């Protein structure tokens, strides 16, 4: 049921957008998509908006994009599908060429070890790309071997700590498209800028869609989320309120009996 509730864009989403816009011309971005098929419902539209944003910056300012997945194989399928079904048909790769402007490294199972490898020595972790091409034959990857050659690190998924352990203290900005379940765990990392910016779940995705103009499912789902939250609050409050009323009336009648 559409309620048409206004969505206020918070500083969290604005910081996320500004961090991406602040990448220098020609800079390289590493994006690790560690979402599963299930989390795609929550974060997928935000990820699609992000890819559109990154690819449009690649067209305007020559950004180089490196995509990888380190936990489950789902992420690599979702990245490939997004690029084939949303980015290429949407004209976001016009003037760009695979291997010169973007690379898909595919699935690098191992999670933390792969995250570590991506920032220390890419060639040790990903000897070929998603399609089997040796990495030394990919023009873009000639100048990208470690975090020194990257301008931005980013990931999407359920977790934040593993990325914090391996990606902080490297002197590069790190952004996260984070599921709402772990938003509470992100605060220790963001306090002094260890984590530069994050989007908080579907709400953050909806705000980011509003900023970039690439509206999708997250925006449409906000009204339903509001109704679900009201239901959740009623379920929390009603039994407790009834219990308190029972407690108070029980005490009153007990006092009345004593008199």
């Amino acid at each position, binding site marked *: 049921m559409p309620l048409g*509730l*206004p*969505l*206020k864009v918070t500083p969290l989403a604005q910081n996320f957008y500004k961090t991406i816009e602040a990448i220098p011309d020609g800079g390289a971005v590493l994006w690790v998509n560690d979402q*599963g*098929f*299930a989390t*795609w*419902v929550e974060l997928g539209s935000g990820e699609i908006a992000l890819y559109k944003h990154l690819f449009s910056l690649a067209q305007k300012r020559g950004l180089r994009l490196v995509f990888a997945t380190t936990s489950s194989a789902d992420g690599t*399928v979702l990245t490939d*599908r997004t690029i084939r079904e949303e980015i290429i048909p949407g004209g976001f790769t016009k003037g760009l060429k695979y291997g010169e402007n973007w690379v898909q490294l595919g699935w*690098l*199972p*191992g999670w933390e*070890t*792969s995250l*570590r*490898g991506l920032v*220390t*020595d890419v060639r*040790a*972790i*990903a000897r070929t790309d998603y399609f089997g091409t040796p990495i030394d034959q990919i023009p873009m990857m000639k100048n990208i071997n470690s975090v020194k050659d990257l301008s931005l690190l980013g990931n999407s998924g359920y977790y934040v*700590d593993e990325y914090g352990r391996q990606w902080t203290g490297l002197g590069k900005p790190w952004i996260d498209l984070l599921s*709402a379940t772990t*938003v*509470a*765990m992100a*605060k*220790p990392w963001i*306090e002094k800028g260890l984590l530069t910016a994050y989007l*908080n*779940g579907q*709400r953050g995705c909806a705000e980011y869609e509003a900023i970039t103009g690439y509206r999708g499912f997250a925006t449409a789902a*906000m*009204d339903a*989320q*509001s*109704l*679900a*939250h*009201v*239901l*959740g*609050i009623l*379920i*929390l*409050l009603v*039994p*407790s309120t009834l*219990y308190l009323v029972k407690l108070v009336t029980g005490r009153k009648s007990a006092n009345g009996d004593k008199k």
Partner: protein
Amino acid sequence: MSASAKTWRTLTVLAFILPGLFILFARYTGIGQFMAARVVGWPVTLATFAIVLGVVTFVRTHSTLVIKREKYWPYNLVALLSFLLTFGMAFAYKPVYDYILTNVVQTLQIAFMGFIGFYNLTFFFHGTRRRTPEVGVLMVVSIFVMLWMAPIGEIISPIFPIVGQWLNDIPSGGAMRGFLICVAVGMILQYVRSVLGYERAWSGGAA
């Protein structure tokens, strides 16, 4: 225990300790970083071998149940046939494989995760029936945070998102930091215990 079993156990323990200690040594001294980076890349290969092993175990388990005609064996047969169809189509005809991935695998993963949404609400109901001050704190904080996350919170009152975000950022942020520090310390202790031989869970209990 036989001599060969003792030898294998020793080799297993060395296989656990040596690569890990080499990585730690390279990280903190800077010596051998090139080779250490390659060792860090080993899980990429080993995990793929493990996946194949996992699938073989799956096929073996379900085949045994079908052959022995255990209870619900037709469902095990359905599992095997679904597996063969999906895997076969990946090589035989990719569009059907993509179709299965999008309309069966993804749909069912989301549907099963959807239970959590239903049970979240029943958890709210059951979880707050125990009336203690801690549960009261939990309830109040979760209401404010929910009204911070959902757009309707700003409509009801601008106080809710302000308080909700403050609760998430300051007291909750501090508690989560403490929690993360404890998790990290626990992880380090677990590794030290494993290296010293007090923990063998990673080897399937081969002590």
